[in-house]
């Protein structure tokens, strides 16, 4: 297992997971998971069902572990409550149900409301933000009339404008076209916040200083992006080869 590259970049560890057991329905997703996440960029890779989305749900406090604790800047993740919008932001894997409002500008404006900004002003600001990204024509677009990838893009914009201190991105590249992926990659690189990204597209996390490879709820490897990605890829190649052999 590659060594842990720990470079606490933000003073103390932003995120701590200690001895966590998580049961979702009949499945035990994690048992005794301990992780400290303080690097500014962290990638999360692993097979379907490995527990990437579940880990995100723990980190942002949507799920509460049965045993152990998850803390964000020393606060219990699930009791962050009112402070949450400014502290933790998450882009869910499926764009559809995280878009609440029927037009793009309103949707982006929702991210500004926890700051107490009046709605009208928030919408105006959302329009400016869209214009600054050459997307002014999207402001009045109906969400239902956007393509799947465009909706995923909207989710990212909503997170950017809300600008919480910790960004959790669950498969943010999955439906984006290649220019969109490149743009998101640049946005992530430039963000001044801590960003954790789960993805099956390894090229996007390879340059990260830390990547965690989850396997059935356990950390299989944890270290610099290029090393962990290479290890994962080697494992995948071996499995595909044996799959192809048994494939008839």
């Amino acid at each position, binding site marked *: 297992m590659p060594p842990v590259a720990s470079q606490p970049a933000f003073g103390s560890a932003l995120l701590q997971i200690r001895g966590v057991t998580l049961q*979702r*329905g*009949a499945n035990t997703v994690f048992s005794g998971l301990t992780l400290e996440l303080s690097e500014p960029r962290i990638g999360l890779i692993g097979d379907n069902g490995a527990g990437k989305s579940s880990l995100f749900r723990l980190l942002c406090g*949507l*799920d*509460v572990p049965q045993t152990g604790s998850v803390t964000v800047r020393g606060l219990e993740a699930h009791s962050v409550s009112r402070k949450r919008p400014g502290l933790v932001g998450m882009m869910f894997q499926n764009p559809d149900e995280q878009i609440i409002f029927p037009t793009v500008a309103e949707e982006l404006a929702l991210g500004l409301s926890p700051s107490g900004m009046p709605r009208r002003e928030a919408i105006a600001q959302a329009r400016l933000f869209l214009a600054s990204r050459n997307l002014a024509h999207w402001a009045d677009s109906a969400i239902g009339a956007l393509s799947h990838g465009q909706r995923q893009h909207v989710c990212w914009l909503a997170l950017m404008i809300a600008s919480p201190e910790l960004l959790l991105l669950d498969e943010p590249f999955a439906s984006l076209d290649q220019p969109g992926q490149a743009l998101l990659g640049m946005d992530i690189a430039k963000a001044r916040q801590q960003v954790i990204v789960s993805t099956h597209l390894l090229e996007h996390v390879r340059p990260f200083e830390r990547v965690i490879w989850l396997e059935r709820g356990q950390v299989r490897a944890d270290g610099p992006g290029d090393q962990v990605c290479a290890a994962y890829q080697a494992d995948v190649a071996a499995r595909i080869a044996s799959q192809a052999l048994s494939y008839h």
Partner: protein
Amino acid sequence: MNSSRSLALISLFAALLAVFGLIPKIDLPLGVPITLQTLGVMLAGCLLGPKRALQALLLFLVAVALGLPLLSGGRGGLGVFMAPSAGYLIGWPLGALVTGWVMTTLPSATPRSAAISAFVASLAGGLLVVHVAGVVGLVNIANLSWTQATFGTLVFVPGDLLKCAVCAIVVHTVARGLPDWNFGGRALK
């Protein structure tokens, strides 16, 4: 107290009642229609638990009171609270509350037990409580005698029993499809 999480679920069930309002009602001479909206009362109780079910029904009635035509057959406004059927309307939130409360006290570990519990809970809250409130309303607003009102309300019982059964079936499906759903709303997530 009223978390964002509750907000979504409460709104969903208020919306469910609105959708059931689109489904045609059958008018009876009593001045009280047969409607599918009582099924919404039962479902809210069984799936949301007492507190949120009560809130969902109150939310729906606020919308009706504001004039939105969400009662079956496109009616709304304050007037509906002074009609012969007003007792039933007031009974809805109470019925949802009781349904939810009964559901929390009964077992729901397997789909089967959840369905049976749901049937009993709907019977107690969605049927009994609503009908008692309805009879009180009929006596006080439509000036019927207690016997007349009681006989009057019996007309609805076969239909409402059917709704209890449908509610149990839905709960059975949900227990199978969403095994981690907390009936009676005991836990938060």
